[in-house]
């Protein structure tokens, strides 16, 4: 059992330690709720991006990429490890 705030903004790295960016969001397939009911929502993709100085200053939009959850190897205290295949 975790809290979203504990995994949001974690580093996203590949198994061999390549830094991909920070997890800025968790994406769940299916439209936002509008009356329909489900007891939980599965996360299907991690949205991550790299923040250089320009992005931090808001002078440039950070480019967002996504990784399917099934290629996530482990979610650790301080980082999210994904399969090397995603390094591209």
């Amino acid at each position, binding site marked *: 059992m975790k809290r979203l705030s504990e995994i949001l903004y974690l580093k996203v790295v590949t198994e061999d330690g390549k830094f991909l960016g920070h997890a800025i969001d968790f994406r769940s397939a299916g439209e936002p709720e509008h009356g329909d009911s489900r007891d939980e929502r599965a996360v299907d993709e991690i949205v991550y991006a790299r923040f250089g100085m320009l*992005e931090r200053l808001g002078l440039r939009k950070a480019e967002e990429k996504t990784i399917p959850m099934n290629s996530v190897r482990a979610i650790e205290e301080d980082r999210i490890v994904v399969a090397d295949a995603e390094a591209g």
Partner: protein
Amino acid sequence: MRRATQHGRWLQSAVALLIIGGLGFWFTAEVNKPLGAEDLKIAVSELRSHAAEGRLIAEQALSARLTATFFQTQTSMLRDKAGAVVKDLNSTAPRAGLEEELSRVKAFAERISADLASLSSSFDDRQEMSRLQEDLDTVFRQALEMEESLKH
């Protein structure tokens, strides 16, 4: 959209640094500053302004454009401000070589706050009022001169 967090964070840290640094700087500046020519100039210009305002108020009162209450309250508030300047000057030691100027400024300060004090109770005494108006006028001119001399 949460991109905002990123510049938000940046801005916030800048802000935090500014406030802390600024306050620190301010505090140290406040604590250990001997009275320099700078401070004297500021004091004089404040006094000059108060004297000038007192003069203006007296002039307006003499031409019957003010109510008694406004006249009394405003002038006594001005007096308090001048009094505050006197207090500041007495509380701090002057930098070497400024003793003479300091005593002159103090003289101005006391004279002006005295004038303003008696002014605030002179609403019904036109002669007294015009006398004070003239006196404030003379102090004002002297203060203005000294202010100029302190600039260089």
